């Protein structure tokens, strides 16, 4: 059906236990949406034949590294691209092993939707619950569960209904805002792109139809304006035309909300107020702009603004702080106890920080915080952090961009942890005290 819609971009991340069929499903989505080209398919068919397989193993389309193909597993996130008439998709195919939880966190951090695989024969497993908890923690707006291998349970409605009901109950425990389910066979293609005649008891949309219909991200018109300053554009005599020698604009990407010329804003952490004098792009001035657009802002008053500052709507600006209560996913194989002095990167500001206390670690099965003194690889825990400079941090539950941060080892430069301000699982607001144990 031809439409006049402007095409949109949706970011997906896959999740699920190893062997649930993630790579096969992604291969199937690409194949059935005609996004796999003939030479790629030839290569997959050739390798499949060499291995004595009867059918082309579509998982080979996404398992790109030599070691992955040799071991038949996915090691690292692979990015895939496919498009339908109205929508372009960026898909992060994440590995399922428990030791790769950090990759699921990585994929989920930018996702508009998580596509979670469940093996119909096995139902909801510990790993399913973990991945749903990660999606809830990272505040991914939508989760679509593909109940896979439905061919191996004889396309039985009862099995599907039971799995779907279990999922709904986990989703409500976790406070997931939107969870949908669809019965599929990734291997044979049922309900992936086209409706299957073998599941006539299922009247809902196919997986691809669901993905085509999901709203993209949040509507900026309902968000508070936030703009981390990346750098000052002040070309002076290097300006590309004489008219811009005096130009001074603050370059950045709108993190959330809408900005209009004349809006009252506050620059944080200094707290100075001013108004927006102009919104510029290389293509000309704009009267308004919204997330996630990259622009350059001119301010009415000549105040001190630099990289690392946050320009925010004056009516809703956060209070800068040096003390954070945060939830982190530990990404390094060196435990937290060896890293009490770290760098903290929040929006465009990097500051020194001290981890002052570990409050506990999240038990992903019960979704409860249990006492702990240290965090190791893949642990999700609650920390107290003191920063050297004040930062305009906000609860991650309300602001995905200004609520997120990284912890970095100042010596090796390694990324140690993905951090979220407050308790994202508790929902809106900063219920820091609920974390006390």
């Amino acid at each position, binding site marked *: 059906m031809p439409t006049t819609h402007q*095409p949109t971009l949706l970011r997906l991340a896959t999740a699920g236990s190893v062997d649930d069929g993630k790579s096969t499903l992604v291969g199937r989505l690409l194949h059935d949406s005609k996004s796999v*080209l003939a030479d790629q398919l030839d290569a997959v068919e050739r390798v499949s034949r060499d291995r004595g397989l009867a059918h082309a193993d579509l998982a080979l389309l996404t398992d790109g590294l030599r070691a992955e193909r040799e071991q038949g597993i996915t090691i690292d996130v692979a990015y895939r691209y496919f498009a339908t008439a109205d929508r372009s998709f960026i898909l992060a195919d994440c590995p399922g092993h428990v030791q790769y939880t950090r990759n699921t966190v*990585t994929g989920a951090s*930018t996702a508009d939707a998580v596509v979670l695989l469940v093996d119909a024969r096995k139902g909801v497993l510990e790993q399913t619950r973990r991945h749903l908890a990660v999606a809830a923690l990272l505040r991914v707006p939508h989760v679509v569960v593909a109940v896979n291998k439905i061919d191996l349970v004889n396309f039985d409605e009862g099995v599907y209904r039971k799995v779907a009901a279990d999922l709904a109950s986990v989703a409500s425990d976790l406070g997931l805002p939107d969870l949908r389910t669809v019965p599929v066979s990734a291997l044979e293609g049922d309900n992936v792109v086209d409706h299957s005649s073998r599941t006539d008891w299922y009247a809902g949309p196919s997986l691809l139809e669901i993905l085509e219909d999901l709203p993209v991200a949040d509507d900026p018109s309902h968000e508070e304006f936030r703009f981390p300053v990346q750098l000052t554009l002040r070309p002076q005599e290097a300006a590309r035309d004489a008219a811009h020698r005096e130009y001074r604009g603050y370059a950045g990407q709108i993190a959330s909300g809408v900005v209009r010329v004349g809006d009252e804003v506050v620059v944080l952490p200094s707290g100075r107020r001013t108004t927006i004098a102009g919104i510029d792009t290389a293509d000309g001035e704009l009267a308004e702009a919204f997330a996630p657009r990259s622009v350059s802002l001119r301010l009415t008053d000549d105040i001190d603004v630099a990289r690392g500052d946050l320009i925010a709507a004056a009516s809703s600006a956060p209070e800068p702080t040096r003390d954070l209560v945060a939830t982190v996913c530990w990404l390094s194989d060196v435990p937290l106890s060896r890293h009490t002095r770290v760098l903290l990167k929040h929006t465009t500001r990097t500051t020194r920080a001290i981890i002052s206390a570990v409050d506990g670690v999240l038990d992903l099965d019960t979704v409860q915080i249990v006492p702990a003194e240290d965090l190791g690889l893949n642990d999700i825990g609650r920390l107290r952090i003191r920063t050297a400079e004040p930062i305009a941090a906000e609860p991650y539950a309300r602001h995905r961009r200004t609520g997120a941060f990284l912890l970095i080892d100042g010596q090796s430069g390694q990324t140690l942890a993905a951090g979220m301000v407050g308790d994202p699982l508790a929902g809106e607001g900063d219920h820091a005290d609920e974390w006390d144990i």
Partner: protein
Amino acid sequence: MTTTETVEKAEAAEQAESRLTLDYLDTLESESIHIFREVAAEFERPVLMFSGGKDSVVMLHLAAKAFWPGPVPFPLLHVDTGHNFPEVLAYRDRAVAEKGVRLEVAKVQDYIDDGRLFDRTDGTRNPLQTQPLLDAIAEHRFDAVFGGGRRDEEKARAKERIFSLRDEFGAWDPRNQRPELWNLYNGRHRPGEHVRVFPVSNWTELDIWRYIAREGIDLPELYYAHQREVFEREGMLLAVGPVSQPRATETVVTKQVRYRTVGDMSCTGAVESDAVTVEDVVVEVAATRLTERGATRADDRISEAAMEDRKKEGYF
């Protein structure tokens, strides 16, 4: 579908219409501009790899937009195989002059002339680019190197980060990459290390062409259909030129062709095409059944993991 369902669907569609949603090319452009600005703010000596190929041309266009009304705040680097299409070199010099940027050139030919590198038996010089590239990075102490690699190009590239840390050998360690979360890029590196940055990671070939059309970006003429003397080798159409001569068994014919990628002339194939304008190319790319590399690059056909192996050695 019941009536209520239909009404609900219509309402949902209407709501979706009134939402503020950035067009997908604007979304990709904004993401790339954000990446350029992060690098300019956090690195001392960035450089942009520029060959005159379409991905590098789009990168330069995005960089110019990111720093407007100021100049592009870093130089360009061309690793010159010596196997160039003359019109691409001419284009390169035109583009550099127009944008007012400095161009550094590292020449594979210099290495061959003084014996540091030898031509391979298959004649391709693409794999020979790695050493001049790494030497140029060390000599100029570049700490961030922008490349036009896209994840849709090739399966090893599909695993590449936007900020990709390289050691002093330029090696890519795919099993030990830094996790990349949100849009918080960690570019910390130690002396001798550098970061490869891929601002158009998330663009597909079709996105690049739609953007070229939308922005009216000028490209080397060989990206559009033209008459050329070619001969067939291993299923590819190679141009007749100083470094790509037909063997006795190969017959030269004149065909209407265009290029989907430009690289080492001796191993970059042309495709038969009627796409004379940028709009024609967009239509052609949308309908193609072959990948960009599969159609045009002999060197990637060497093995299942040819690109992965070259990247581990410091290639882009």
